[in-house]
C-alpha cells in the first residue's frame, strides 16, 4: 500500500530527508522506528510533499525530529508542507515547550514504610476523633432525649439485626456442626468423644459465636454503612445537613452505631444457640449421642461465666465496627473508585480490629480469672 510511511534520505541538498505516506497513529510503531533511525544520523530540513495523511502523532514526531537538530531554525525545518497540514504543524510547534519534570519515581521501601506509618497514625487519630464525636453526640442526646433519632435507630436495627438473623443463624449452625463433627472424628481415636460437648460448648460460647457473628456483621453491615455514608458524602448530602444546623454525627452515625451495639449481642446470642444446636445435631446423628445426654453434659461443661465472656465482648466489637465504618465513609472523595476503596478498607480494618480486640479480651479475662 502506498500509505505505508517512509523517511528516506535524498540527494537533493545536504542530508535532506523525504517523508512519504500516512504519518498517522495506526503506523506509529513504524514511525517511531523511522524517527529513531533518522535522529541518529545528521538530519536537515524534511521534505513533507509526499505525506498523504497526518495526525497529531505524526505531526509531533516531525516536530520532535526538527527539535532534535541543534541549529535547525524551526521555520525552515520542513519544506513542501501540504496546505491542509500546515495548521496542525504550527499548532504542534507550540506544544510541549515547558520542561516537565520526570515522572515521580515510585517510593523506596523506606518511603513506603514512612507513608504507611503516617497513614496508620492518621487512621488512629480519625478513629479517636470519631469516638469523641459520637460520645459528644451521645451526651447531647442524654441532655435532650427528644433530639434522639429513635425512628432512624429502629430502622437501622431492623436492617442490621432483624434482617441479618437468618444468614447469621445458618452460618453459625454450620460452624457448630463442623466443629462437632471434627471433634468427634479426632477425639474418637482417644476414646474421648464425650469431651466434644465441652469443646463445642466452651468454644462456641466464649469465642466462635461472637467472633463469627462480628465478622459477618462487619462484612454485611459495616460495608453498607461505609457505602451509604460515602455516597452521601459524594453527593454533598452531609454538607447539606451541616448547613441546616444539624450535626451529621448525631443524625447519621449515632443511630447506626447504637443499632449495631444493640443488634450484635442479640445476634451473637442467637448465633451461639444455633451453633450449639448444630453441634448437638451432629453429636446425635454422627456421634450417636442422644440429645438428652448432650444437654446434660453441656450443663456440666459450661457455666454462665463462659456465656458472659462471650456476650460481654459483643457491644465493644459492634462499637469498633461502627466507628471504622463511619470513619471510612467520611473519607470517601468524589470518585466511584474511592467509594469502593473505602468500603474495602472498612471491612478489612473492622475485621482486623475485631480479631485484635478478641485477643485483648482473651488476655483480660484470663488475668481476672474468668
Amino acid at each position, binding site marked *: 500500500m502506498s500509505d505505508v510511511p517512509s523517511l528516506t534520505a535524498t540527494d537533493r541538498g545536504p542530508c535532506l530527508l523525504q517523508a512519504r505516506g500516512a504519518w*498517522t*497513529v*495506526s503506523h*506509529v*510503531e513504524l514511525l*517511531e522506528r523511522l524517527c529513531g533511525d533518522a535522529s541518529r544520523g545528521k538530519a536537515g530540513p524534511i521534505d513533507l510533499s509526499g505525506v498523504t495523511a497526518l*495526525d*497529531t*502523532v505524526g505531526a*509531533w*514526531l516531525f516536530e*520532535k525530529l526538527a527539535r532534535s537538530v541543534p541549529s535547525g531554525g524551526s521555520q525552515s525545518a520542513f519544506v513542501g508542507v501540504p496546505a*491542509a497540514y500546515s*495548521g*496542525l504543524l*504550527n*499548532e*504542534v510547534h*507550540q*506544544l*510541549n515547550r*515547558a520542561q*516537565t519534570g520526570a*515522572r515521580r519515581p515510585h517510593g523506596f521501601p523506606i518511603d513506603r514504610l514512612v507513608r504507611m506509618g503516617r497513614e496508620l497514625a492518621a487512621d488512629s487519630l480519625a478513629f479517636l476523633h470519631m469516638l469523641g464525636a459520637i460520645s459528644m453526640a451521645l451526651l447531647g442526646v442524654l441532655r435532650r432525649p427528644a433530639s434522639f433519632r429513635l425512628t432512624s435507630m429502629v430502622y437501622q436495627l431492623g436492617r442490621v439485626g432483624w434482617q441479618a438473623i437468618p444468614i447469621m443463624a445458618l452460618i453459625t449452625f454450620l460452624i457448630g456442626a463442623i466443629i462437632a463433627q471434627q471433634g468427634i472424628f479426632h477425639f474418637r481415636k482417644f476414646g474421648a468423644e464425650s469431651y466434644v460437648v465441652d469443646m463445642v460448648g466452651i468454644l462456641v460460647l466464649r469465642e466462635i459465636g461472637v467472633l463469627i457473628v462480628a465478622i459477618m456483621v462487619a462484612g454485611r453491615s459495616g460495608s453498607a454503612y461505609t457505602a451509604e455514608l460515602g455516597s452521601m458524602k459524594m453527593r454533598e448530602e452531609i454538607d447539606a445537613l451541616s448547613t441546616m444546623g444539624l450535626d451529621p454525627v448525631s443524625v447519621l452515625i449515632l443511630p447506626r452505631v447504637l443499632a449495631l451495639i444493640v443488634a450484635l449481642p442479640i445476634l451473637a446470642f442467637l448465633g451461639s444457640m444455633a451453633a450449639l444446636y448444630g453441634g448437638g445435631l451432629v453429636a446425635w446423628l454422627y456421634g450417636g449421642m442422644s440429645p438428652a445426654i448432650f444437654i446434660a453434659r453441656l450443663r456440666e461443661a459450661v457455666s454462665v461465666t463462659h456465656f458472659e465472656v462471650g456476650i460481654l465482648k459483643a457491644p465493644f466489637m459492634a462499637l469498633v465496627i461502627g466507628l471504622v465504618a463511619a470513619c471510612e465513609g467520611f473519607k470517601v*472523595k*468524589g*470518585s*466511584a*473508585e*474511592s467509594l469502593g476503596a473505602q468500603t474495602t478498607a472498612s471491612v478489612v480494618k473492622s475485621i482486623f480490629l475485631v480479631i485484635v480486640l478478641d485477643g485483648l479480651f482473651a488476655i483480660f479475662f484470663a488475668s481476672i480469672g474468668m
Partner: protein
Amino acid sequence: MVAGQIAIRVRDLVVGFGDRIVIDHLTLDVRAAEILGMVGASGGGKSVLMRTLIGLLPRRSGTVEFPLSSPNGSVPRGVLFQQGALFSALNARQNVQFPLREAAHLSPALLDEIANAKLEMVGLSASDGEKFPAELSGGMTKRVALARALALDPALLFLDEPTSGLDPIAAGEFDALIKTLQRTLGFTVFMITHDLNTLAAVCDRVAALADGRIAALGPLPDVLKSDHPWVRAYFHGARAQMLHLA
C-alpha cells in the same frame, strides 16, 4: 477532507422506546468540516439522535451512513459527553492516553508526550495531567474530556452540550477552543447545545429538532427567519431577545 462532502448521511431515521416514537423519519446531512449545532426542546430527542448516530441506541428503521469512513469501514469519531464521562479511576493524562493505548502500540515516552500535547491543545498544562477527575473543575473536566475525544484525531466529533454548567467566560473560551481546533484539525462537529451564544459564535449551520424531525436547517440567520412555531418560540422568546438575536 474536502468541504462540501457529506460526513453523516441520515435517511428516514426512526427511533423509539416502546410505543413512543422519539425520532420520526428524520433526514439530515452533516457536511464535512462544518460545525452543526442541534437545538431542540429538553427531552425532545436531541440526545437520542446523537446516541443513535454514535451507535449507542438501536434504530427502528432508516439508515445512518458515514461516507467518509476509512477503507476498513471504521468511523474514527470522538464523543464529548455532557458530564465529561472521564474514567474516575484514571488521572487526566491516563484518560487521554486510554484511547491511544487501545488503538496502537506507542512507547511510554511518546504516549506521555502525545497526551501532554493534547492537554496543551485544549488549554491545560502538563501538570494538570496528574489530577484525577474528582479534582478537576467543571471547565477543566470538559477540556480533559475534549482532549480524550480528540486523542485519535477523529474526523467526526460529537459534543453533547459542551458549554452547559460553565460560566459565560469559560463557555466563551470553550467555544473559541472548539472553533480553533476545528479550523486547525479540520474535523466535523455535530453539537447539541442550548447555548444561543455558542450557536451564534461557533456553528456554521443550525438544525432545529421539533416533533422528531428537523424543523429548520441552515445558517443561523436563515433559521431565525423560519416560520415553524417551535423554532419561532425558541429563538424569539424573552431569553433569546436579551441576546439581540432577533
